């Protein structure tokens, strides 16, 4: 494996956004590397921090190295290959009603007192879905949980505006490469694009602004991608909601269209579905753009950690 070449093809996360929490053993497992190969990656510029004699790396850097290693055996390659199998299926399967056991854990690391929690809740009613059995978190300290049963459905509502389609196509054709990017950095699409990269939040914020400049009402919205390996992974998701020429609000899920094109052959139908339609594997939330999913009113200045576990109800 020519890891130096892979490292040279990656733009590493800038230091101000980097969080080096993945120990070298995790890097070896994620990239299927032996220690000497990690040394070569470090020599090629992979940023690290050394604590108690152990090197730690940013998980996003490792993910991106794996994604673009073309080895077909790194963890990121295997994960995304598995996750995007759905995009090859007949899209009718993505348009039917699906019910999900929705569980979100909220953790506040810096709080010292009992305080109310606020979660940007599932926002599916507008799209024909429903939410039932909600257990909202009571005021507490440290951690809490939101539980609900959420039903999503799909609808084939492709964008009709030629201007919106042109702007979307221009972005898809701009050559940005999808990368894992820390969420705080994704709030600055210009910085992400300057790396030659894109991500769902950055792309959605940029595209929403482009739509607004073209005279349309548009907003980037955050949500949850459902059925991700039994809750073992928690991928952030974002898309653009835009009021189309026909007066209907359409959802442009540009990052998923781009990822499907890259990861799975024969996904043209799914890619088209991403350009205006809604599908049952996403639960939109009330959070806009790059806003947090949850808050704890304890006064701590640390952002709370939010982990979603969304499993299909069999």
């Amino acid at each position, binding site marked *: 494996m020519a890891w130096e070449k892979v490292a040279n093809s990656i733009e590493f996360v800038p230091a101000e956004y980097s969080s080096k929490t993945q120990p070298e053993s*995790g890097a070896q497992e994620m990239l299927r590397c032996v220690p000497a190969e990690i040394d070569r990656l470090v020599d090629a510029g992979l940023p690290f921090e050394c604590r108690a004699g152990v090197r730690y790396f940013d998980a996003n850097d490792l993910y991106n190295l794996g994604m673009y290693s073309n080895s077909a055996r790194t963890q990121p390659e295997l994960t995304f290959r598995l996750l995007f199998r759905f995009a090859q299926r007949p899209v009718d399967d993505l348009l039917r009603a699906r019910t999900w056991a929705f569980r979100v854990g909220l953790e506040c690391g810096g709080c010292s007192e009992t305080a109310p929690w606020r979660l940007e809740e599932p926002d599916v009613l507008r799209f024909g879905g429903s939410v039932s059995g909600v257990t909202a978190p009571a005021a507490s300290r440290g951690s809490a949980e939101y539980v609900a049963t959420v039903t999503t459905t799909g609808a084939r509502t492709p964008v009709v505006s030629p201007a919106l389609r042109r702007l979307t196509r221009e972005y898809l054709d701009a050559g940005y490469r999808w990368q894992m990017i820390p969420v705080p950095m994704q709030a600055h699409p210009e910085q992400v694009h300057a790396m030659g990269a894109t991500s769902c939040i950055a792309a959605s914020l940029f595209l929403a602004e482009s739509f607004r400049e073209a005279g349309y009402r548009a907003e980037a919205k955050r949500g949850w991608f459902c059925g991700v390996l*039994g809750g073992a992974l928690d991928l952030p998701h974002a898309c653009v909601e835009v009021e189309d020429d026909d007066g209907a609000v359409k959802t442009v899920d540009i990052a998923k269209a781009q990822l499907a094109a890259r990861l799975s052959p024969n996904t043209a139908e799914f890619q088209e579905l991403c350009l205006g339609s809604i599908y049952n594997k996403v639960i939109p939330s009330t959070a806009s753009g790059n806003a947090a999913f949850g808050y704890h009113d304890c006064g701590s200045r640390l952002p709370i950690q939010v982990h979603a576990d969304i499993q299909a109800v069999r």
Partner: protein
Amino acid sequence: MTADPMQKVRDFILERNPKIGQLAPQMDLIDSRAINSLAFVDFIFLLEELTGEGIDPEDLDLDDFRSLNAIEARFFKQKAAQ
């Protein structure tokens, strides 16, 4: 299906967790982090290889992986009974 697929499952887990020593059938593999999020995808591909069938990531429930007993019941006994 492989002759003794559960032995391959045990080998997979022990190879990644040599300190465990022995695997009890009811040991919680998730809470003990014997199967962590990094190994999870590898483990799914192993199960696909052993069962000879694709696994839909949407149909997965962490409880299916919680113990050797659960893994056997979900991926091997169900199939054998069909």
